[in-house]
């Protein structure tokens, strides 16, 4: 029979004198006064607690979370001696002629004695800082054979102490799956201490470990491994890494070491300077094309559902309560149903887009794309780390602005804050997809893809322009990206990510749209001339329509000076999610022209046809470019002001509006020559 218990020690109580003192307080859970005390240490997830359970017969679950109470388990390890050909408990019990009870302490998982965490503080306190005569008599250090170097750093530190050490190599089966084997004899020679391979789950190597521990306990304390006399922590650590690296290299036989893995072979192409960007563009084109092709029919069906049966049902209900034809119908049917309904038509599209991006992310491909993009940015002279918030910007500009805080240099931060609004966020995607579907049909995906390419080009070009004018001396910060092995995406994880993002989209967009719909409805209900009642005014004569008509001539050179189009851009300044809903709201109050179905797409097509003088395609492209380049939303402005102040925010808005207008005019004026 074996016994064990758990002590709760806080780092402050884990004084150096605790190692043996703590073990004498509860004799029923120790091997008794005078019995050897052995400490079991090792990094988390190296099978340390499993080994403790196997040795003491108890079951203990260790919690290793920083900030919580640190747990130390202890128990009695009744050791036996094995013969050279015998290494199982049954076999050993047959030779159980010289049992020895050892008090075994299971210290919390620790990567090192550097005291970076409460767990490491405790381990350091027990093994290193305490008086020599109160330290454990021997340390068993568990080391994961599949990640040998990770565990050997702790070994190197403990070997610098005047204490007996036995290394228990665990997880040899996992190492074997990776075609890695560890030669314990060579490792023992290199480390200067006994090494035993053990598998506590299958209880193999347990008796050999007991025999080795007992033999080592009988030996004198070995000389510590000499360490360089220096106060430079990096030099000291590097000396340990040199030592452990040589030991690991000597003792490890990696059968597949010289072979390229499949990931390596794929990465040679995926991250190549030329093939990498080409492949990345092809993948993103496929994502947009697939999204628009699959989602378009669903979107059309939902559009028809909300503009037809749902609107008619609400109208009928209002007629029952005698509110038909009143401002209530205007707000509910033309406002909320049209606006929120339009949002809901994008659920299939956004869901599919999020799914494809989640698959790319979970598979590990996006990490490769990051390498490609980062290289491109550094080639252009932009700071490599600025890539990080810009990637986030393709999801949403607001957190991307906040993410610029990772940049240590104020000028890099400022430059990146000014560039983030040019990254095409998912809110703009809804407008691009709708216009792409209406004007480009089966090529909608290519049109949307073109907007993303334009977005990247704008970031690079504006960045270069600003660097060559404002910040000529800005240096670049090195950045490295860890490439994980390719991974088959899991349904549960991918589904959770898609749902989380879709829910976020619906939650935020619906709030923005309801608020904007109410504001737009209010402005569309206020007449600008006498003789018209509130809520009974034609939209073009409302405050909304008159204001839009006042601004719309600015867009004449770009081919989209219809007041309905201009008004959508004004609403889009608040939030891009509201562009389509405001369109839907505006056109819902208008009677369809002869030959039109009354669907939103028909209204918009007619508007661009008219405003462009018969060149709707260049006009809509100009509109999309303007939408891409001008101020994303008020929330982004607030974030910019918080990060870089009002002056730079205003300058940024000026750059965005000027860039957007100039590009839109250029696209339309050049495009009309060909289309």
């Amino acid at each position, binding site marked *: 029979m074996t016994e064990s218990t758990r002590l709760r020690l806080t780092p402050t109580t884990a004084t150096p004198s605790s190692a043996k003192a703590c073990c004498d307080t509860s004799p029923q859970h120790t091997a008794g006064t005078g019995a050897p005390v052995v400490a079991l240490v090792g990094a988390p997830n190296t099978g340390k607690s499993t080994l403790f359970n196997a040795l003491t017969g108890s079951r203990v679950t260790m919690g290793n979370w920083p900030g919580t109470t640190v747990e130390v388990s202890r128990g009695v390890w009744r050791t036996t001696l094995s013969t050279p050909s015998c290494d199982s408990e049954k076999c050993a019990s047959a030779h159980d002629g010289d049992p020895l009870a050892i008090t075994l302490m299971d210290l919390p998982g620790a990567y090192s004695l550097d005291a970076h965490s409460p767990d490491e503080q405790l381990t350091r306190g027990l093994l290193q800082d305490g008086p020599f005569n109160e330290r454990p008599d021997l340390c068993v250090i568990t080391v994961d054979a599949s990640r040998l*170097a990770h565990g050997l750093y702790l070994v190197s530190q403990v070997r610098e102490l005047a204490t007996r050490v036995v290394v228990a190599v665990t997880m040899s089966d996992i190492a074997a799956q990776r075609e890695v084997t560890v030669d314990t004899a060579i490792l023992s020679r290199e480390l200067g201490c006994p090494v035993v391979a053990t598998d506590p789950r299958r209880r193999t190597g347990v008796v050999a470990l007991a025999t080795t521990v007992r033999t080592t306990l009988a030996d004198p304390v070995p000389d510590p491994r000499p360490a360089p006399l220096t106060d430079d922590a990096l030099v000291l650590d590097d000396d340990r890494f040199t030592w452990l690296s040589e030991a690991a290299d000597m003792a490890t036989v990696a059968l597949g070491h010289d072979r390229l893995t499949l990931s390596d072979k794929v990465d040679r192409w995926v991250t190549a300077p030329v093939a990498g960007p080409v492949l990345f563009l092809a993948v993103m084109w496929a994502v947009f094309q697939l999204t628009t092709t699959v989602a378009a029919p669903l979107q059309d069906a939902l559009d028809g559902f909300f503009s037809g049966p749902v609107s008619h049902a609400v109208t009928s209900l209002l007629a029952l309560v005698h509110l038909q034809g009143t401002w209530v119908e205007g707000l509910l049917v033309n406002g909320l149903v049209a606006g929120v309904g339009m949002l809901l038509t994008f659920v299939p599209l956004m869901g599919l887009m999020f799914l494809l991006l989640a698959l790319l992310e979970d598979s590990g491909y996006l990490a490769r794309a990051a390498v490609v993009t980062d290289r491109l940015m550094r080639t252009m002279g932009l700071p490599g780390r600025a890539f990080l918030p810009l990637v986030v910007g393709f999801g949403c500009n607001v957190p991307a602005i906040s993410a610029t805080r*990772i940049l240590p240099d104020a000028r890099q931060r400022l430059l990146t804050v000014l560039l983030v609004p040019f990254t095409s966020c998912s809110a703009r995607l809804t407008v691009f997809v709708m216009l792409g579907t209406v004007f480009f049909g089966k090529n909608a995906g290519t049109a949307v893809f073109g907007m993303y390419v334009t977005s990247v080009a704008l970031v690079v070009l504006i960045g270069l322009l600003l660097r060559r004018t404002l910040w000529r001396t800005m240096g670049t910060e090195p*950045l490295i990206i860890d490439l*994980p092995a390719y991974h088959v995406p899991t349904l549960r994880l991918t589904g959770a990510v898609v749902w989380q993002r879709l829910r976020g989209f619906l939650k935020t967009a619906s709030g923005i749209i309801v608020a904007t719909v109410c504001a737009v409805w209010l402005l569309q209900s206020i007449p600008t001339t006498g003789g018209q009642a509130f809520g009974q005014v034609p939209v073009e004569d409302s405050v909304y329509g008159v204001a839009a008509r006042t601004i719309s001539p600015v867009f004449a050179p770009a081919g989209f000076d219809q007041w309905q189009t201009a008004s959508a851009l004004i609403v889009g300044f608040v939030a891009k999610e509201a562009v389509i809903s405001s369109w839907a709201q505006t056109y819902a109050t208008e009677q369809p022209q002869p030959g039109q179905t009354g669907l939103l797409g028909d209204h918009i097509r007619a508007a661009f046809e008219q405003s462009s003088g018969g060149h709707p395609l260049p006009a809509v492209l100009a509109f999309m470019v303007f939408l891409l380049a001008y101020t994303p939303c008020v929330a982004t402005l607030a974030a910019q002001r918080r990060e870089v102040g009002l002056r730079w925010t205003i300058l940024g808005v000026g750059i965005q509006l000027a860039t957007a207008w100039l590009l839109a005019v250029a696209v339309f004026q050049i495009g009309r020559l060909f289309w």
Partner: protein
Amino acid sequence: MSGPLHLVLDEITAGTPTLAAIARRTGLSDDVVRAAVDHLVRAGRITSTELSLGCPTGGSGGCTSAGNSCTLPAALGDRRPGLVSLSLTRRVA
């Protein structure tokens, strides 16, 4: 002669883009490179940041598909595949 930690730090400073490339250029094993990077992260000499187009906790909460940069919660070997950036931590002299 520089040890593994200095070699890895030098490669990061030189802009070597991936851990695999560092292993190739330094001649160190992949295991040692990862152990060195983990150690440098714990020692505060390298900052490790996990990126996602949308973190589970969301971004500012004020935007759709909010992305965010999240602190890497565990050692490199303990996480699922994802985009992780490692960069030198600027130290105050």
